[in-house]
Each structure stands twice: as structure tokens, then as C-alpha cells.
């Protein structure tokens, strides 16, 4: 997907950080603009995280809001009820989000769920979370929400300070994203996004990398969810609802171009300017004017419209939606992956047919030593333990068939 273009250019990253750091100097006087700017940062981190999960490894997590909310609520409730310091409970919230994201990813990879079913499972989780928050009144205060004013750590009480804290989180997540994509994991993500079967056949541990992406993404979501809880001074189920988080993030990603670094920097800048600024009525502003209801409804129309239009016209940046193999579409493809892709693509059809024909053999082949001749046919070194770790599911079935 991102062949040939520098993924997260350090210079662009630094420039983004500097520009964003200057924002309070311009908008610092107005509480309203500071709030929009901070919300923008929050949604940018959401987008970066969701980009790792969906843009790079094709796991449609429709529970971004729920993960953020789980983290935020756990942190706030523990702080309120047990009197722990937020510095202790925020990591706990992050850990919970990581755990949840990792489990969803692991289970869905192991069960071989397609994109759509991952979407439904996570959507159902979102609904369960929402209902739990509404139902566990004595802990969460239901629809009314919880005030977090008195318990927030000092840094998150003044507007500029919290802006810089969140900017720190954003820069951190961008650096993380950058490092991740530059590492071996980045190559694996690219291969998985292009063609999961080919990636598995090339010896990439699909389960491991998908779970890795989901865990890292969820950790970022959890971090920003917990910070948001304290920053806003107030949390309620609406703060983390599907509509106010997931949809916005999905639209952001669609507009910005999925699986690109540009999404991490440019897209939120571009679309965040449009969407979260309208979001302000959605964010719990005590004493919001009644006219904000109009704004919210207008935003819904706008958002839906943009989403539908972006998805249906398939314009500039919807490259994610070409899920098929992308072999020679991009001229600037780096050398090695091309060889990998072409090599595997040549075999792929044969393999599929072979695997289908010999599906019954699979049962008998369980005890065989797993050794994939393809691993050695390509010059990419195989992961040492990948064969064993990945020893379940469709991919390894192919592999077993090959080795039998």
C-alpha cells in the first residue's frame, strides 16, 4: 500500500510537531479554540492508532470508542472509588485496552474471521460496553456521567498544559508508528495488507503481527481515552460512543488515505479541522446552548455524507479498498518485496488448488514436521518459530499440505 513513499518522514514529523506546538501561541487566549485544538490532537491519536490496526493489518475494529472508554472509565472509577493516583490508574486503563484489543485480534485471527466479522464482533463489543456503562449505575453513574474535575492530575487542568501533554502523546505515537513501520514489523504489515495468504506462505507469522498491531493500537487508544477522561473534566457514555469516536475516526482515515503516513499527519489536520470542530457540541460542554443540537444534527448529515461519498466514489485516497494483490501497480516498489510478491503470486493459485484437493490429507498431516519449502525459496529469512507458532488455521494448512 505504501510502496515507494517514505512512510513517516522524520522531517515531516518534526515539522508537524513544531507547527502543532505553536498553536497555543496563536489560539492560547481563546478557551474555545484551545478546546478544538486539543480535541484535534485527541482524534489524531485515535486516527494513528486505528491506522495501525485497520490501515496496516486489515482488522476492522469498530470498538475504538469502547476501548478508549474502557480505559477511561477504569481509570476514573478506580481513582474515585479507591483513591488511587491517576498516574497509577491510567496505566491500568491502558493495560486493559491493550488486553482487550489483543484478545479480540487473537481470537479473530485464530477463528479465521473475515474483515466483516471482525467488524461485527467488535461492534457487538462496543454495544456491550455501552450498555454496561449505562447499567452499572453505582460505578459509572449511567447516562449522567462522572465529573473528573477534582481528581485530575495537575497537568491536565489548565488548557495549554493539557494541550502539550496530548501533543506529547501524539508525537510519541507518531514516533512509535514510524519506528514500527521501519522495523521488520512494518514489512510484515505491508505483506499482510497486500495479501495475507502470500504473507503467511512467505513465513510471516500473521497471527503474531496482527495481534501486535492490535495491541499497540489499542494501547494508544487506551492512553488517549484515559487522558481524555481527565482532560474533559467529565465523562459520559456519549464521549466514547460509536458515533462520536469510531465513525469520526473511520471517516478521517478514509479521507486521509488508509495505510499511509499521510493519514497520521495530514489527514487529521485536514479533516479534524472540519469534523471535531463540529464535535464541540458533542463533547460534554456543561451549559451547552440549545442551538448546539442543530449543530450536532448538521454534523451527522455532513459526516454521513462525507463517508458515503468518500466510500462510494472511491477517489483519491481509498487505496485500502483494493484488497487484491497489488503486484505491479506501483512503479516505485522496492526491489525485494517485489520479488517476494511475484514469486509467491506465481505459486499462489497452484497452492490454493493443491490445498483444496488435498484438504483431507490435512488431517493426516498433523503430526508431520512442519517445514515449508517456500520459506527457503525466497530470500527473506523465515522467522524461526513462525511455523510452529502459526501452526493452526488455513495458512498453516497450506503449509502442511506442501510439506506432506
Amino acid at each position, binding site marked *: 500500500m505504501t510502496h515507494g513513499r517514505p512512510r513517516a518522514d522524520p522531517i515531516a514529523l518534526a515539522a508537524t510537531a513544531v507547527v502543532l506546538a505553536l498553536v497555543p501561541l496563536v489560539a492560547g487566549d481563546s478557551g474555545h479554540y484551545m478546546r478544538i485544538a486539543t480535541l484535534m490532537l485527541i482524534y489524531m491519536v485515535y486516527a494513528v492508532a486505528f491506522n495501525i490496526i485497520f490501515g496496516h493489518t486489515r482488522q476492522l475494529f469498530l470498538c475504538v470508542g469502547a476501548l478508549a472508554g474502557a480505559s477511561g472509565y477504569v481509570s476514573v472509577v478506580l481513582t474515585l472509588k479507591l483513591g488511587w493516583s491517576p498516574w497509577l490508574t491510567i496505566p491500568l486503563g491502558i493495560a486493559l485496552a491493550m488486553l482487550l484489543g489483543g484478545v479480540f485480534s487473537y481470537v479473530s485471527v485464530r477463528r479465521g474471521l473475515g474483515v466483516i466479522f471482525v467488524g461485527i*464482533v467488535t461492534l457487538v463489543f462496543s454495544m*456491550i460496553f455501552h450498555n454496561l456503562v449505562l*447499567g452499572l449505575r453505582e460505578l459509572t453513574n449511567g447516562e449522567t456521567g462522572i465529573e473528573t474535575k477534582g481528581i485530575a492530575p495537575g497537568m491536565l487542568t489548565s488548557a495549554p498544559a493539557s494541550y502539550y501533554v496530548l501533543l506529547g502523546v501524539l508525537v510519541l505515537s507518531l514516533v512509535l508508528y514510524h519506528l514500527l513501520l521501519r522495523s521488520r514489523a512494518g514489512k510484515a504489515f505491508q505483506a499482510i495488507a497486500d495479501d495475507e495468504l502470500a504473507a503467511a506462505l512467505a513465513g510471516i507469522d500473521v497471527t503474531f503481527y496482527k495481534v501486535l498491531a492490535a495491541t499497540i493500537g489499542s494501547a494508544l487508544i487506551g492512553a488517549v481515552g484515559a487522558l481524555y477522561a481527565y482532560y474533559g473534566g467529565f465523562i459520559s457514555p456519549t464521549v466514547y460512543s460509536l458515533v462520536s469516536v469510531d465513525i469520526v475516526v473511520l471517516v478521517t482515515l478514509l479521507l486521509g488515505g488508509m495505510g499511509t503516513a499521510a493519514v497520521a499527519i495530514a489527514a487529521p489536520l485536514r479533516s479534524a479541522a472540519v469534523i471535531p470542530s463540529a464535535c464541540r457540541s458533542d463533547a460534554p460542554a456543561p451549559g451547552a446552548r440549545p442551538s448546539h443540537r442543530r449543530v450536532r444534527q448538521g454534523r451527522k448529515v455532513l459526516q454521513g455524507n462525507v463517508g458515503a461519498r468518500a466510500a462510494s466514489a472511491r477517489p483519491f485516497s481509498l487505496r485500502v479498498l483494493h484488497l487484491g494483490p497489488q503486484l505491479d501497480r506501483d512503479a516505485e516498489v522496492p526491489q525485494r518485496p517485489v520479488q517476494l510478491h511475484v514469486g509467491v503470486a506465481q505459486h499462489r493459485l497452484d497452492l490454493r488448488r493443491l490445498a483444496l484437493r488435498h484438504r483431507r490429507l490435512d488431517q493426516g498431516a498433523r503430526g508431520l514436521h512442519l517445514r515449508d519449502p517456500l520459506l527457503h525459496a525466497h530470500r527473506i529469512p523465515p522467522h524461526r518459530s513462525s511455523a510452529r507458532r502459526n501452526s493452526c488455521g488455513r495458512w498453516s494448512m497450506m503449509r502442511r499440505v506442501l510439506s506432506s
Partner: protein
Amino acid sequence: MLAILLDGIVQGLQLSLMAVGITLIFGLGGVLNLAHGQFAVVGGIAAALLLGEGLNPWAACGLGVLTAGVFGLVVDRTLLLPAYRSAGEERLLLGLLITLGLSFVVNGFLDYRYADVALTLSLPVPSFSVGGITIRTASAVAALIALVAFALLYAFLRGTLLGKVIRSIIQNEVGAGLCGINPARIRTLIVVLSAMMAGLGAIAQGLFSSVGTEMGNELTSFALIVAVVGGVRSINGTLVAGVLLGIVNAFASYYVGAYLTLLILLATAAFTILLRPQGLFAHRT
């Protein structure tokens, strides 16, 4: 006890009426329609508006169902075209995003324009009793609507050549195309049919309580759960799953409260996907 059971069955039939549309569109068009509840709401609101104009309730409901159908037609012939042009997983994803976007547009527009319109139908006789059990007329009528709709659907799918064509496309779109069937036209027919059934579901819902602009997402999610539990490709499965979940819903709301019931239903859906992705009762369509 028996009353709860009956109530559950009626609820279940209504759920299936909504869910069968999702099943059909998914089976035939390969698009998971997340705007299905909105189809229903459009039908319901149209009926309510016509009722407000002083139209005969029968005519208003008929026109409401028709409006839902026309809406489905327009969506199918315009918005969903890019999805149909692609295949496989790409079509699923594109369809999902398009219908999700559509649901927001419709929700936003209806909220904005017709926030205070809701469909409520009142029947002349509130309840009658058979063999010692008091039955609400609304339940009986709603069950009747659903049963008749399902009977017609089955007769259509089993008995007519067109039905056979539809089943053939569900089995294998390419194969059907090779036999000289035009999948696009059949798809449009099915989307319209599903939208009309959704509209009918809204009318049935209007008999019990009211159908407002905000109900779209709720209806979609319930229909989605039923369709998923029934196996998103099987009509029989959807019917059985709907009735089963309806009964579970009725008993659970009676004994443990509505809040836990919803959680139980959601958990059922999640576990069905994880344990049996093909659905509980996956048979032939």
C-alpha cells in the same frame, strides 16, 4: 407463562421480518446492509406523515411500505453500484462503509427534518381473549403480518421461476450468470423486496409502540444480531433465530430485566460468530 411465550414469538417474528432483509441482501448482493433499520424508519415515517395528512390508515401503511421500497430501489441503483462493481471482500467492505454512511445521512436528515414525527397505529379493539389468555390485538395483527409476509416470501422463493433464479444466485453468482441470469436486476428486486419487508416491520412495530426517527440504529442492530445468529446466508436460519431470540428476549426481560437481556442477546451474537461463523442453523437457503 404462555403469555410470555406468545409475546416472545410475536417479537421474534417481527425481528425476523427485519433480519430477513439483511440476510437476503447479504446472500444475494454480498453487501451487509447497515442502513436496514433506516429503510424501516423511512417507511414508518412516510406512513406517519401520510396518516397526518388524513389518509386512510390502510392506504397510508401501504404507501409507507412502498416508500421504503422506492428508497431501497434508489439506494441500490445509485449508492451501491460501486460496491457491486467490485467483488469478494472488497465488496463487503465497500458495502459496509457505504451503508454505514447512508445510515448516518438518513438518521441526520430525519432527525433534522421530522424530529417530532412518529408512527403510532391504534386498533379499534385493544385486546381479545382466546381460551383464557388475553391477547393484544396488536400482537395478533403483527404476528399475522409477519406470517403472511414469510409465507409469501417462501412461496415466491420455492414456487416461482424467479424464486429459483434468486436461489441460484445465492448459491453461485458466477454460475447463475453463465446460465443467462442477470444478477444485477435480481439484486435490485431483492433489495426492493427487503426494504419493503423492513417497512412492513416498521408498520408492525407501530402497532405496539411508536416508530420515531431515532429508532433506526436500534432496529438495525437487532436485525443484525438475528441475521448473524441465524447465519447471514440462510433464510430458514434467520426465521428460527429470530423466533428463538424473541422468546429468550421475552423471558429474560420478564425474569432478569431488560438491561441484562440486551447483554445476553449481544453476547449470544458475539459467541455465535466466534463459535459457528456460519450461524446456528445454517442449512440451504
